[in-house]
């Protein structure tokens, strides 16, 4: 369980704040998060819609939608270099080369009117890393992600592919230059369950082959259980709990994590009503002063309303941390 600490750390996010400046006020989509990732590790980032997962990933890629969104504070250290200090040109060198990304819906993440070959080629055209012709490289990529008869399929257009096949192509583009870090933003959400597990298997295999670290963003706890080694729970722009997967499912520490796990239906178990966490996440326009979960928490104490809890280490060995007053 301690292996991830020994591994060299490739990504360190410190106090990252990404805010959106709208007419109605400042939306604090990501409001001070810290985490790190080791080499070749698969980390799950879970949270409900609007909790800031995707914005976190876009911040790392420096692709936050402008001009509304802006990274206002923090550091993103990738191999000890702060990505936030890089110029646009330097970022282009890193994107698709050392950090890559997979997006949610494969059917819209490929340009429908350009051949698959051309789109995979884009990854190589700018980053001239490996030798060989563009054609061969494309075939190799498609072979790696198990697209049948790549020589023929690469001449096809994305609309001639099924959703699962499209996602394979997108994953192929993501890992084409064997990046050190792959950010997968809900890569299986738009796919049906059988394809989901195939894609997850594929990603896990790719990770083992290339040693790429994967930041898996999802709201599906099953996905996390299937491939992640560590999990981080995000709530209203903050990370509330970080834990190894096994610990997380066995002894979740944060009331929100407990609620999440409780609300997963178990096959074969008869229940009248599925558990759900009452209430809505707070508005990120004016987040509450204290703990953000306080209005939905049934164990809230007086201090929870006043102050945001510090990050508490529950277990040094497994690096289990939680931000909750209940554990002080």
């Amino acid at each position, binding site marked *: 369980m301690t292996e991830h600490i020994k591994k060299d750390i490739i990504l360190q996010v410190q106090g990252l704040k990404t805010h959106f400046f709208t007419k109605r006020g400042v939306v604090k989509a990501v409001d001070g998060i810290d985490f790190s990732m080791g080499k070749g590790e698969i980390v799950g980032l879970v949270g409900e819609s609007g909790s800031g997962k995707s914005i976190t990933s876009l911040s790392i890629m420096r692709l936050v939608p402008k001009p509304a969104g802006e990274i206002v504070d923090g550091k993103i250290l990738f191999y000890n270099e702060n990505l936030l200090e890089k110029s646009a040109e330097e970022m282009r060198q890193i*994107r*698709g080369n050392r950090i*890559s990304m997979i997006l949610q819906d494969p059917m819209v993440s490929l*340009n429908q*009117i350009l051949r698959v070959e051309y789109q995979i080629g*884009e*990854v190589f055209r700018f980053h001239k890393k490996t030798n060989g012709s563009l054609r061969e490289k494309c075939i190799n990529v498609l072979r790696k992600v198990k697209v049948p008869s790549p020589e023929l399929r690469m001449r096809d257009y994305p609309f001639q592919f099924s959703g699962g096949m499209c996602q394979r192509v997108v994953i192929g583009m993501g890992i084409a230059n064997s990046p050190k870090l792959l950010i997968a933003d809900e890569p299986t959400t738009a796919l049906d369950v059988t394809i989901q597990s195939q894609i997850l298997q594929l990603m896990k295999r790719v990770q083992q082959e290339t040693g790429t670290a994967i930041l898996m963003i999802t709201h599906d706890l099953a996905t996390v259980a299937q491939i992640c080694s560590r999990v981080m729970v995000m709530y209203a722009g903050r990370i509330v709990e970080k834990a190894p997967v096994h610990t997380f499912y066995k002894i979740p520490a944060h009331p929100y994590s407990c609620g999440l796990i409780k609300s997963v239906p178990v096959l074969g178990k008869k229940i009248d009503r599925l558990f759900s966490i009452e209430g809505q996440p707070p508005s990120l326009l004016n987040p509450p002063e204290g703990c953000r979960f306080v209005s939905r928490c049934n164990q809230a104490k007086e201090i929870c309303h006043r102050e945001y809890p510090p990050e508490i280490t529950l277990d040094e060995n497994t690096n289990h941390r939680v931000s909750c007053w209940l554990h002080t």
Partner: protein
Amino acid sequence: MFLDKKKKKQRKIKNRIPFIGLTFVTGFLFLVIFGNWVAPYDYEYWDMASMMMPPAWEEGGSISHVLGTDALGRDVFSRLIHGSRFSLLIAVACIACYGTIGVIMGLLSGFMGGITDMVIMRLCDLWMSMPAIILVSLMGPSALTVIVVVGIAGWPGYARIVRGECLSIKQNDFIRLARVAGCSNLRIMFSHVFPNIANTLIVLVTLNIGQMIILTATLSFLGLGTQPPSPDWGLMMNEGRRYINSAWWLVVFPGVAILMAVLGFNIVGDWLREIFDPKQKLR
């Protein structure tokens, strides 16, 4: 889907309309390409002996000049055929000129956003309020002037449409993915966004050719465009204007030629739009 007989008939007629347009356009293009072989006379060939001859079916007409002759004894039919080339050439040259400027400006404006967008759009407003026709008279009337002036003046329309398309396309995930792959702005603009607006452009250009034919004909008619003895349709109408009481064919036939060409391109343009727009197809 159940269709009663009347609706079926309506649909049948509706489905045939594009063919009328296509016929006109292909006929027009045929004359543009093969006009030299089809026309019985050269457009400058004149014959004083057969001045002001009416069309063949009128009294005094002759089969050797099917649509009659003008005041210099030039064959109207031949001049119309040669004129098709002038019309299309000028129209296409104008569109190529301002289409290119417009597309580049529109892509820049839509894709870059921010200050670039604002500057280009205000420039558009400014440009559109400039009286282009006066420029023509300043530069001295000739075919080249028309191409240059109209070609420079027309870009804001294209820029606006391209900008609008670009704004919606750049929201797509594939643009984000292209960025993730490390593509530069220019590369995304021209290799990823541009192919997606190509269908809009095809429709736009087709509809525009019709408008351009009218515009150039108007300019020639006013004496601001091509100069005699070019067989430009507008110019022919202008020359025939003086004899409208005695020789109606000098005005009517060029007019009909303009009408058919423009109508043809408009119908084909509409038809292409329906083909490219799946939402309209369902109707």
